[in-house]
């Protein structure tokens, strides 16, 4: 879950070092308060905030690759953590009044932290926009990590259904098309070269299909070696052209086996459904029927 944390070892160590350093400096320069002087409400409030921010940093570092946005976010939160940390330490340790830095520590590191965090969030926003662009053909404006296939990182059948229904509802009077395709003799490939190679092929195939789609098309994993492609606002002629292109792209795809490096060519069969205002199940049924009739590959007239 937190395997990404390994990449942020240095940041983590630096932050912990800073907290320890602040603690040690406080101990050296100040004196401990008596028990009755301690305001426990403040301790819980400030200490709890520091703890929560520490947790946020952990989540951010644990879910992000290295890079500028990660640095900014963790740096910003780091400064805020330091401010709360100093606040919490103040509850236990009295710093003599002439020590200017205690107040400064808090009141400077907090705004710096907030500034860095804000700047970081702005860049994160920019980054997200460009990632959304990359993910568009997979998720089409709707993110639900539970509906994603673990092997191909595509949406699964429930997601497919919901998206078809969405298009049918949004544009009830436009033609939509659905392609369902499967790999010819895929189970033979699994038997001959192991399911591991089969999985690698499906993964590669999903990337290849994606490259051959338009920006509003949506690729999903149906089940097994079957994929589904939603073509919104597309008439049957265009759907036919697109499926011909997909067929050619796949049959020319020189897949390399992991073990031997051998090249493997595969063909796909494609079924096409099209119509206006159909339900997801009608689309899927029609496409599957067409797929079963289309073997070996042929184009719907």
């Amino acid at each position, binding site marked *: 879950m937190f395997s990404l944390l390994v990449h942020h070892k240095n940041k983590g160590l630096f932050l912990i070092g800073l907290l320890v350093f602040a603690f040690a400096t406080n101990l050296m320069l100040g004196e401990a308060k008596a028990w009755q002087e301690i305001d426990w409400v403040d301790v819980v409030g400030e200490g709890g905030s520091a703890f929560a921010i520490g947790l946020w940093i952990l989540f951010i570092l644990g879910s992000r690759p290295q890079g500028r946005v990660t640095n900014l976010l963790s740096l910003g939160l780091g400064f805020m953590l330091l401010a709360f940390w100093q606040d919490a330490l103040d509850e236990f340790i009295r710093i003599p009044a002439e020590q200017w830095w205690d107040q400064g520590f808090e009141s400077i590191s907090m705004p710096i932290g907030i500034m860095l965090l804000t700047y970081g969030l702005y860049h994160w926003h920019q980054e997200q926009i460009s990632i959304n662009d990359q993910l568009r053909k997979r998720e089409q404006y709707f993110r639900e990590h539970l509906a994603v296939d673990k092997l191909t990182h595509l949406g699964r059948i429930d997601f497919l259904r919901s998206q078809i229904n969405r298009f049918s509802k949004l544009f009830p009077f436009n033609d939509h098309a659905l392609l369902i395709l*499967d790999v010819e003799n895929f*189970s033979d490939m699994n038997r001959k070269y192991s*399911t591991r190679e089969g999985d690698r092929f499906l993964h590669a195939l999903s990337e290849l299909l994606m490259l051959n789609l338009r920006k509003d098309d949506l690729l999903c994993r149906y089940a*097994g070696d079957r994929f589904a492609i939603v073509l919104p606002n597309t008439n049957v002629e265009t759907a036919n052209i697109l499926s011909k292109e997909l067929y050619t792209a796949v049959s020319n795809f020189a897949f390399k086996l992991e073990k031997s490096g051998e090249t493997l060519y595969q063909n796909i069969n494609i079924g096409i459904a099209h119509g206006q205002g159909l339900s997801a199940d009608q689309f899927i049924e029609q496409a*599957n029927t067409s797929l079963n009739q289309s073997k070996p590959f042929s184009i719907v007239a």
Partner: protein
Amino acid sequence: MKQPINISWYENDARIYPAHFHAAGLMDILLERGIESDRFLKGTRLFYDDLLKGSIRLDSSQFCHIIENAKRLYALPELSFRWGHGMFPGHFDAYSQLICHAGNLKQLTDVLSRYSILTPLLSLKIWEDADTVYIQWNDAIGLGTSYAFVIEAYVTAFTSLVNWYFSEKLPWKFSFSFSEPKHIEEYKVNLGDNVQFSMGVDLIMLNKSWLEKPFPSINRNLSSNAAFTVAKRQCENENEKGSLGFIEAIASVLNNESPNILSLNETADRFGMSPATFKRKLKNHGWSFQRLQDQSKLEVSLYLIQTKGLGNTELAEYLNITDANNFRKAFKRWCGMTPATIREKLVYG
């Protein structure tokens, strides 16, 4: 009073199933997906390193425990089908040799139904009518919530193997006892479009003309009768003869006795147990006597409907039910539909 039955049986705590056979295939899929062995073995008191040694055997409750863990950890309905696709011919010593050297479907089904070690957890019965062969799967040992998963896996395993031998998708027809699952698309992709649910029995149907058709030699080791015979001799030596799972054993007693209908007390007697013990053990295996009895009557009726073409009146008479109308009602209770409906649904083609 009849003598106790002449069959040996084992219960769900008997260490029967070699861990490096079928269970290993399932575990390999999980490991490939980065699911660690201590997670899927949790609650089984087993360690993966021991399993690799190849001498450990599982009891059915451990096997089911692994299956339930696997379902939860893998969390996608494709798991059972994947397990099935890779199951046969498998690495089951001489038994796999038998599968590899079987010359046609008839020989293959003989092998699978004779050596229960090849289809652990389930029992397999093959029967025919005028033009259809029925491959029937039953719970052998009390699978509870794992039942559908195991059925999915074995049905996929069997048809996937035969499709591979013939290098084409055969026109299979499937009937499942349970109701239509949410992941119906997995059935369509892995098995085909001809699937029916809520049928009361788990059957694969195929036109009989395929039984004797020799498997084409591509995709298979050089097949020869000699190799088959040698492997068979080896399996005969190793095969633990005739031992049945507890549920399978009871079902076979009930079926063999038909049309007599054994009571719980009589059946317990055949197994040399007190009715109380018998009942407790049944419960422990996730079954009740009533359910087993209904299942047995349903299967006997179905067999007679399909093979002998018996009507409701004759069946009522055969099963000692007062009249055809009561038979219809009873039948509906066993499987949720009338004899006429199921006859229609089981028409092959």
